[in-house]
Structures are given as C-alpha cells and as structure tokens.
C-alpha cells in the first residue's frame, strides 16, 4: 500500500514544511502520495511534484477547498483513505485542525507531533512540553500521524512526479469561511527559517519590539519570533509565538532577547543548533541552554549587535 501526505500550501506556493514532513513520510518505507487540497492550487501541486521521493501528487481543486476548512477537507481525506495505510500531515494549524477529525472518522487513535520514525509502526513524540519523550507503537490499521517538522530535514528537489486530479468529496456544509487577517511580510517564515530573532516581555511595547528586534532580524535576514508574554501584551502578533503552544522551531541560530526561558518557551526552541541569549538577569534560566550568553540591557546591546552584524555582512 502507500502513504498519503497532506501538503501545506497557500495555493500559489508550497510551504517548505511539506518537504520536511515528506522525509518522515518516506521513512515509513511505502510509496508516498502528496495530497494538495485547495482552490486554484495547481502551482502548489507542481511544486510538490518536484520533491524527491514523491510517487504521485493528488490534486483536489475546488472552490469548496479554498480555505481548507476542517469539515470538507477531512471528508475528502476519508474518501481517499481506503488506498492508504498511513496518513500524515505537518503539525501546522491546518494539519492539527484536520487530522484528528480524520482519525476519529476512521476510528483510529492519532499519533501527534512525531519527532522520529523508529519503525513504520513505532514513533517518538514529546510530552509535557518536551520534558519527556515517549516511544509509542500504533497497531491501528491506518496510521494517522502529525509531524513536528523542525525535527526532520527537508527532502530535496529534482523530481517530476505525475499530478493526478481527484474527485471532490461531499460537502458536509457545516461551516462557512467569513474572513481572514494574514500578515504580509518579506521576512522568512518562522516555521522553516534558518535564523530567528525572538523578543520577550522585556521589550515593553510594540514600538520597542519594532524598533529593536526587527532591525536585528533584518540585519541577519532572520525571521521574527516572540514569547507568549510579548504576544499576550500585544507587542507581537499571535503567530509569532514560539513554544509548547505556539510554533516549534529548530533554526541554525536562535537569538532570545529579553526572554526568561520558561519551560513552555524552551519547548519551542531548545533544538536550535546555536542559541544566543541576551538578558540583564545573569541567573535567567535561558542561559542554562544558551551557547552564547550576553548579560546586560538589551536596549544597549541589541543596537550594538545590529551594527556589528551589518558590518560583518557589509
């Protein structure tokens, strides 16, 4: 049989987390079909067809799938499920919304947020904000799995798999899309960025966040993240939150500015390759996991650092 991977995309572009989730899907050992669900999503399907190891791309293209609402997308996946013994999705907002609905409709228990494929039926996953790692075996006939993409390398590109249209499934007609408020940014995307600068409560205001954190990110060409405290206080938008209940990232470089290092925050970034912490409290827990720590006032240090990096890159 085969493995079905739900692609993450916005119709026009394929999100790079798909290539990472593909690596997990391929580790199951069966041929992998990538499912692109959208409205006018041909470009995303073509991009998926280029990913190494993809046997086939399935394209479900219809107005019904424009915003990837859980009810119609789950119904579609269930209509295809008979051909697959595993169904995977990256642990994005879409994957986390849709896949448990699929699992329940198939009467199987989902394995959430895997960080390693030990065997086709055995997986590692974090619990308690990553303070423990469980190894679980699933005996379910269809394995339904979400993938923590920060834990898998991206598959390469060089393939040209066939794209096959699939039939639209019945519309459950339970919900309607009303609107969305998506920030446009030229910066790299947080979930797949190579470099990240994150700010915490210490920034004190949205203006300071903008004036201090963003120039450093721009000098580095980095994505911007934030602690929950910074998001709750309105200094940064909600989708910048890194942590147990926000995004989980593992960039080459993570710079934590004015962030104390609560376990819920560490859960989202402690697998980064190099961690830098800037904090005025030398006992802040963040220093226990930082490769390089700078003790001092961020309002003085960060502009200096921004200038140094601009010089180094200059």
């Amino acid at each position, binding site marked *: 049989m085969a493995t079905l991977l739900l692609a993450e995309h916005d119709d026009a572009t394929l999100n790079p987390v798909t290539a990472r989730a593909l690596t997990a899907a391929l580790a199951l050992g069966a041929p992998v079909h990538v499912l692109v669900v959208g409205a006018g999503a041909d470009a995303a399907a073509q991009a998926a067809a280029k990913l190494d190891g993809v046997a086939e791309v399935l394209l479900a293209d219809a107005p019904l799938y424009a915003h990837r609402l859980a009810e119609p997308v*789950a119904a579609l996946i269930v209509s295809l499920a008979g051909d697959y013994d595993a169904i995977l999705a990256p642990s994005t907002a879409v994957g986390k*919304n849709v896949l448990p609905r699929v699992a329940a409709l198939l009467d199987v228990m989902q394995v959430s*947020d895997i960080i390693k494929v030990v065997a086709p039926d055995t997986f590692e996953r974090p619990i308690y904000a990553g303070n423990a790692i469980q190894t679980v075996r699933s005996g379910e006939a269809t394995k339904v799995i979400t993938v923590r993409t920060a834990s898998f390398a991206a598959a390469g590109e060089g393939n040209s798999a066939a794209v096959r249209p699939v039939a639209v499934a019945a519309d459950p007609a339970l919900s*309607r899309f*009303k609107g969305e408020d998506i*920030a446009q940014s030229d910066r790299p995307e947080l979930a797949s960025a190579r470099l990240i600068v994150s700010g915490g409560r210490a920034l004190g205001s949205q203006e300071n966040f903008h004036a201090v954190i963003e120039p450093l990110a721009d000098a580095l060409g980095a994505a911007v993240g934030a602690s929950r405290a910074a998001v709750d206080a309105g200094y940064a*938008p909600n*989708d910048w939150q890194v942590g147990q209940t926000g995004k989980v990232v593992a960039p080459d470089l993570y710079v934590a500015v004015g962030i104390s290092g609560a376990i819920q925050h560490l859960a989202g970034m402690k697998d980064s390759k190099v961690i830098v912490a800037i904090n005025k409290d030398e006992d802040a827990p963040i220093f226990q996991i930082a490769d390089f720590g700078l003790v001092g006032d961020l309002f003085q240090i960060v502009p200096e650092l921004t200038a140094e990096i601009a010089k*180094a890159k200059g």
Partner: protein
Amino acid sequence: MKILVPVKRVVDYNVKIRVKADGSGVELTNIKMSMNPFDEIAVEEALRLKEAGTATEVVAVSVGPAKTDETIRTALAMGADRGIWVKTEEAGIEPLAVAKLLKKIVEQEGPALVILGKQAIDDDCNQTGQMLAALLGWPQGTFASKVAPADGTVEVTREIDGGLQTVSLNLPAIVTTDLRLNEPRYASLPNIMKAKKKPIAETTPAELGVDIAPRLAVLSTTEPAGRSGGIKVASATELVDNLKKAGVL
C-alpha cells in the same frame, strides 16, 4: 443554550516533571495537579456567555480516576452549575476514548456548544475536540481567540499560521480555546464554599458503553537529550566573532 465544558486534571504547569529512571513513565506521586490551563479558559468563556445571557447552564465534565472530582470542583467554584465525573481506574485515557465518552455525555445532555481546551499540557495531543466534532458530525472552531454566538450559528476567530481566520459554524458546534481567548477568573472564597453544595453526577465508561482500552502502546518514556549551557561573552563584537566561528553567520 446549554454549554458543556470538558476539563482535564493535569500536572500543574509550574511543575518541572521528572521521568522515572526505569523508563516506565513520569513521576506523578505527590505532584501538584491543576486544571489544564486551556480548560480554565474554556470554563471562563462559558461563564461569560452565561453572564451575557446567551447561555443558560454550564456543565463541567471530566474523565479520570480518584481526585478528578477536585478538578470538577474547581470549575464549579469558578461558576459552573454542575459537574459530571466519568470515573476511570487510571489517568491518561487516550483522546479517542475521551471523545467517545464525551459523545455519550453530549447525547444525554444536549448542549448547543461544547468548549474544550485546544491541548492538554500533559499529553500535548491536541486531538480531543476535533475528534468529538467528527464523532458527532458537528462543525469545529479550533484554537479560538474569539467566540460570538448568533442566531443558530457561532462565529469563531481562530489563531492560524500567519494570522487569524474567522469561520461561522452551524450550532450545535465544538470550540477549542487558545491562550488569548480570555483571562480566566480566580474562584472567590464564597464561590468555593458555594461550589461544595453543587452536584457532581458520577458515571463510568462501562455505564456509557464505551471501550476505553488504549490503542497505542507506550514502549518507553525517556529524558530528552540534554543541552548544557555554553559561555558568556562580554560584548556584541565578541558574540559576532563566536557566531562566525560557529558558522552560523
């Protein structure tokens, strides 16, 4: 309308958990337990809808072993009207089984809205609400940062990657809470006293006719790979030198 709020008893979020040396699980004896933080937000939202005159009754339900009633009592002290305790032998019932139990409770109680947490901070599964919606054939508004019931529908603003999305769901519906939906209240002393007299009905998976046998076998539980602290640097210049050496610039 009636609102059902499933609340889970979990290790308090401030506790640094310890993995048992033999790999059999996490140390749970003499550990402070609390209501899952997302479920406090769910209770708060239900209470606000009642205070606004939209909801008529708020029922808290929990699935778990001895002492789970303490968590239900916390919901009652916040202001929920009554509780339902689905008593089990063990903790850690899987989301699919919890969803099946909750489906039975929904069929008995007939709520128009079920508000759950988006994620339990012990298993970090993020499944139960979506599964319950599937089993009931109801719509779902997950990761909610705003909930606005209207005539026969509820409008839910959801925290998604990249921003916010608003959907309108037919009632009855499932909502799961995100952190910024509201700030839960503390139970006042008089309300804690009052809560002692509020009823908690008890039932069991057997009475509800649900098989809760686990579907996943947990082979081992281990400590994550450790990460040790590095060095302190004295200046931005020294930091940039080190980052160059580490090959990340």
